[in-house]
Each structure stands twice: as structure tokens, then as C-alpha cells.
């Protein structure tokens, strides 16, 4: 399936910032399940985009704007050819062996309730796959999903469980937290979901199962990613995959965040087969 994506993020500064430095993670990489046909990143400001690769192999760009800066607009646009792999990932860029993804972070650190949840689910070390599916189904039941915003903070695992609501990223925090508690390497994914004519930014999780490899789990929808998913960045938690991270962005004191406009459309063109 061919997916066209346009993701626009606008950040306003009030009062204008003296200068700002930021990193964007808005460039997907190809793997067996997706091929990037065309991708551009535009910054509507006068500066240099310095490309780099982060610790997890994500393509990112860092830039500095001299002030005063009152508005910042980033637009990522491109076309991706996807195909269904039943959630199993092959050909991804891997910078670490799976055990690294046993690390909890501040956002996935389990509290008492999360520990309790982890213990309450039937677990057998011989069959992690069933456990992961049970976990996915349980989370779908326990957490009422709210829309995912490209900019706002994602709730930590414990908070999501306590409140019983959270965006797709919060659900992914919870999923990775519980999986790691059972020594299953798990990681956080950002990307897009294109269904029908609409497109949304979305987070999900991946877990590592011996003999199979990395498998995607979208617990918010209780399903493994299909050809409707475009995978953007990977990390230990939502912060590692934040599409835009910059100075003054996270304090919110003098920043007004505007929801990015995002559209993903299934293009008319025929599938071009595998590359």
C-alpha cells in the first residue's frame, strides 16, 4: 500500500525566544515492511539542518535559530510503500542487542500498581508470545485511549494505569514497562497510522521474542501493526522518539503549542512490489 504523509508542527514562543536549539526526529527509514519512496523535511526558517543519527539509529536533524524566534514550523512530507508483515520486523537498523531494551526509564519505571498488574497476568518463560498478546488485550481493556498529540507530554506508565486513560504513547509505556518486568526486551515506537482517508501520529511498542525477533504491538488497538502503519523512530520511551525536542519547548511557560496538522492518505498508485 502506498501512503502519503504530511506532518506539520508549529511551535509558537511568547515572548519570542532569544534563540532556540532543537532536534527533530521526523525521517523514517526503510525496512522489509516499508520502503521510503520520497521524503523531504522543511523548516520554514533560515538555518542549517544538521543531519545525524541518534543512539538507536533514528535519522534526526539538529538546528539552531537565532532570535528573536516567535514561530517555528517544521513540515515532513513524503511517500512510503508499505506491506503487511504480521507485525514481525525484518531489515531494521539495529544498534543494540535486545537486552538493552530491558532498561526501564523514568517514564516506564513501574510503580506498585504496574508491578501488581505484571504479576497478575499468566506468564510462562517458554511462551512469551502468548503473554504479550494477553498483555495487549488487557491494556486495551484497562486503558481508554485518548487522541495522540505530537507535542504534548506522554503520561508515564504508572499514571496511565492509575487514571485508566492515556494516548497511544502512554499505553506503549505501560506495555514496555510490564514486558521488561518479565525480562522481555521491549521498546517504544513512533509513527503514523493511515486508515481510510485520515492519518494520525501514533505510538506503539515492539517486543523481542527469541527465534522470531522484534514484533510490533499496538496495545491501544489490540493488534499488531499492519500495512497501515508507518514506522518513524525507535527508543526506550516516548522521549527518545519525540518528533521535536528543543529548548523552551518542554517548560511550557513561554510556549504555546499548536497541534500539528497531519494528513496521511492512501495514494491511488498501485503497489510497486518489493524493493
Amino acid at each position: 500500500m502506498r501512503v502519503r504523509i504530511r506532518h506539520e508542527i508549529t511551535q509558537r514562543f511568547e515572548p519570542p525566544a532569544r534563540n532556540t536549539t532543537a532536534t527533530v526526529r521526523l525521517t523514517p527509514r526503510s525496512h522489509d515492511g516499508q520502503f521510503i519512496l520520497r521524503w523531504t523535511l522543511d523548516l520554514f526558517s533560515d538555518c542549517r539542518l544538521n543531519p545525524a543519527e541518534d543512539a538507536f539509529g533514528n535519522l534526526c536533524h539538529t538546528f539552531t535559530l537565532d532570535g528573536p524566534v516567535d514561530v517555528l514550523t517544521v513540515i515532513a512530507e513524503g511517500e512510503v510503500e508499505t506491506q503487511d508483515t504480521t507485525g514481525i520486523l525484518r531489515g531494521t537498523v539495529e544498534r543494540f542487542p535486545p537486552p538493552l531494551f530491558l532498561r526501564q526509564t523514568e517514564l516506564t519505571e513501574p510503580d506498585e500498581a504496574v508491578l501488581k498488574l505484571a504479576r497478575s497476568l499468566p506468564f510462562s518463560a517458554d511462551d512469551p508470545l502468548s503473554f504479550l498478546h494477553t498483555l495487549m488485550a488487557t491494556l486495551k481493556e484497562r486503558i481508554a485511549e485518548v487522541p495522540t498529540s505530537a507535542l504534548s507530554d506522554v503520561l508515564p506508565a504508572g499514571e496511565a494505569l492509575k487514571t485508566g486513560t492515556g494516548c497511544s504513547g502512554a499505553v506503549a509505556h505501560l506495555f514496555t514497562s510490564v514486558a521488561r518486568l518479565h525480562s522481555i526486551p521491549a521498546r517504544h515506537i513512533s509513527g503514523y497510522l493511515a486508515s481510510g482517508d485520515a492519518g494520525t501520529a501514533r505510538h506503539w511498542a515492539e517486543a523481542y521474542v527469541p527465534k522470531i525477533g522484534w514484533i510490533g504491538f499496538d496495545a491501544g488497538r489490540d493488534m499488531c501493526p499492519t500495512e497501515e502503519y508507518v514506522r518513524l523512530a525507535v527508543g526506550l520511551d516516548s522521549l527518545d522518539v519525540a518528533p521535536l525536542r528543543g529548548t523552551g519547548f518542554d517548560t511550557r511557560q513561554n510556549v504555546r503549542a499548536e497541534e500539528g496538522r497531519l494528513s496521511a492518505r492512501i495514494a491511488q498508485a498501485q503497489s510497486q512490489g518489493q524493493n
Partner: protein
Amino acid sequence: MRQTFDEMSSSDGTVRPAYETLSQWLSNVPQDVLAHRRKEAEFIFRRIGITFAVYGEQNAQERLIPFDIVPRILTKEEWVQLSKGLEQRVKALNHYIHDVYSKREILKAGKIPEELVYKNPAFRPEMNGQRVPHDLYVHIAGIDIVRTDPSTFYVLEDNARTPSGVSYMLENREIMLRLFPELFSMYKVAPVENYADDLLATLRSLSPHSGHEPNVVILTPGIYNSAYYEHSFLADKLGVDLVEGRDLFVKDAVVYMRTTEGPKRVDVIYRRLDDDFLDPLAFRRDSVLGVPGLMSAYQAGNVTLTNAVGTGVADDKAVYSYMPEIIKFYLGEEPILPNVPTWRCREPDHLKYVLEHLPELVVKEVHGSGGYGMLVGPTADKAQIEAFRAKVSATPDNFIAQPTLALSTCPTLVEQGVAPRHVDLRPFILSGSDKVRIVPGGLTRVAMKEGSLVVNSSQGGGTKDTWVLDV
């Protein structure tokens, strides 16, 4: 427990050769003169503002570390043995860090459990595959040494992040020279004053560029940091700028500092700021002490950070217990300085032993420092022991235990006169691209309370001048 080793006199009262002159001098100088000189020293320390902050004490924001005027003496032979061992240890630390951030041979060889690296919060994924100048990570190390008998110096702890205390080493010598010039005419003491030159040479050797004189700065968290005095002291001695995060900015992966004449490029940052706070775009995003984008400049190879990011992966107390294997693995040598035997509570049989022998052991948190979160079994009461039993049982991975060592004692001036007190030693090891530099001696810390084994300044410990004899 074995008999305590006193560095001045043996158990039968004979004074060891190195201490003979000092011992005689001590017995000749009237007590009130000593007391007076100590007051004088304290006065000087306060006037020049050598203070440190103690966490958790509201009213004592700036306190003096007690300074003991009786020097601690090491012979040349003792020092030669020590410095060889220190150099070996630091080389191994650098190899180990390089390895865990690149090929991870030691994990593949199964010498160290993977999770000790991967689940260690001090392991920084950002450093994976990152090239650092000359593959050196720990440019400034502080290795804590304790002594238990004439020939045994144990390594108690490696400090590979931002070890502090060197300013006390230098100031202590200054004060001793001022107060007791006569003593220096009786002994040939190896100088330590060249530390600042050595440090600057080391930092310059690490510049990512050749061709121009590198701009070296010291990055401090600011005046409220407990070691701020040391930061400004070092900047002063090195003749470099002492900067805070807000003085620096990054543009197109290059670090600049804001000066009255406009932006000036920075090449080497001796940072006294923990990894977590370095760059809000890469690490803790609430950090206001760091420099946004610093990691991007670092990763682009445009600036050197000393010590490198992620060195903490080598210096926690769980990794410590593997240091003998680490030395053998990378250098093919036996450790010159032994480790203190260590039980890792993460291993079930070790845990069992530890829980059964709590009253005899010293139990430490794997990631703790400064003497916080530590149980000294023999001096703890029942309630403290039980509290630790609960903690260790709940999260065994977080703890290690060691036998209570009979730390050596040195003569120390206390209320009742000169009496033996327990000491340790922190030498500072500088690793530059050209060579390893160690100034003779280091910082001797002394537990001022009788019988106490806790020398940490945050727990009321004091310091002494450390003399390495040059004969």
C-alpha cells in the same frame, strides 16, 4: 577483626623510620602551640572561602571540612607500588568503557553479566559507537585506596565521573607550607603544586583540533554546588574560564561561549556536571544547568568533554567487584592493587551469606556515594541492621557487601591531643593523549571520631596533607 595497622608506630610502640622526625617534632612542640596553629589554619580556610555545602542541612549551607595539621607520610617505595597499580587500573577502566560502547567483547566473552551494562542507568546509549579522542574516556580519575597492613593497599572505590577533592590536596599543602615551614626543612617532600599544569596539559592534549591553542573551559553547575569552591579554584589555577551552562550555546554543532566581545569557540570542556544535566535535548529535559545541543556538538566531534559521557558505567560498586577480571581481560596482567573482597547481593548465594552476617559487614548501595545509604555493621544498632536487612532483601541488585576492613590509622590532632584515627587516600590520575600523570600523594581523608571508619566529608570526616617522601 585484625589488629589495626598504625602508619606511625608498630604495635610494640616503635616508630617507623619515615615518621621518626615527625614523631620527635610532635613530642617537642607544646600542645597549645599545635592547637593555636590549627586555629590559624581554620581561620585561613574560612577567609579564603574553602567551604563545601552539605546536602540536607538548611542552616549550615557552607561548612569547613576539618583540616588536620599532622601530615600523613608515604615512602617513595610505597608510592611507586601505588602509582603503578593506579595507572594499571585507570588503563583498564578506559579499555572497559571503550569496549562496552563499541564491540562489547567482554560481554561476548561472558566475563561480565550483560545486564550490569545494559540495565545500568549510567550506561548511555548515546555513547554507543561514538568516537572520543584517543579512545580515552576517563581523563581525570579519583581512586579511593585503603591500607590494612605494611604492604597491602586495597582499592575501595573507583571514581570515573567527576571526582572531587583535588583542591583540598593543593590547599592543604599550601597551608602546611605556611604554618610549618620548619617541617619541610626536615623532610624532602615531593611537590604537588604542578597538578594544575599537569591537568591543563592533559586537557589540551584532548582537543579535537590541532593547529590552534585549544580553548579549555571548566563547566560548573554554579555557586550552589557543594564543590563550587573547587571548580573556581581550578579555573583560577589553570587560568581558564569557569562557565555555567547559560554561558555556552551550540550553533550548527559547534559550542560557543558568550563573551563581552561576542561568541568564542570552545574546544575542551572539563565538566563538573553529571551526565544527566549536560544537555536537556539529550538527557534530563528539565535541566537548566546544561547546554541545549551539547551532545550534538559532541557527537559531531567538535568538542571534547572530560570526563567523557557515560563513564559511570565503569565505576559503580557492582562493576567494581569485577575489576580484577576486567584488568586481566584487557591488559593480560594480574591486578597490582587488590580489590576488597565483595559479595554481590544480586547473586543468591552471596545474598544469603550477606543476610546472615550483616553485623560484621559493610553494606553499600551500588549507585550510592559520599557515605550516604551505607551500613557499617559493627557500629550499627539492631534497628539499623534490621532496616538494612529489609532493604537488601527487597532489592538485592542494589547492594554489595564487604568485610569491615581495619583501615590504617594515622596520628591526628584531636581534643585530647594527638591520637590515631582511621584514614583513606584518594590519588588523582590524569590520562592525556600523550601520557598518564599522577602527582605524588593525593587527598588523605580522616575520620575525626575515635574508632569511626567513615571518612566522607559529608559525614564529618576531615583531611590531611599527604607527603610522599622523595628519598
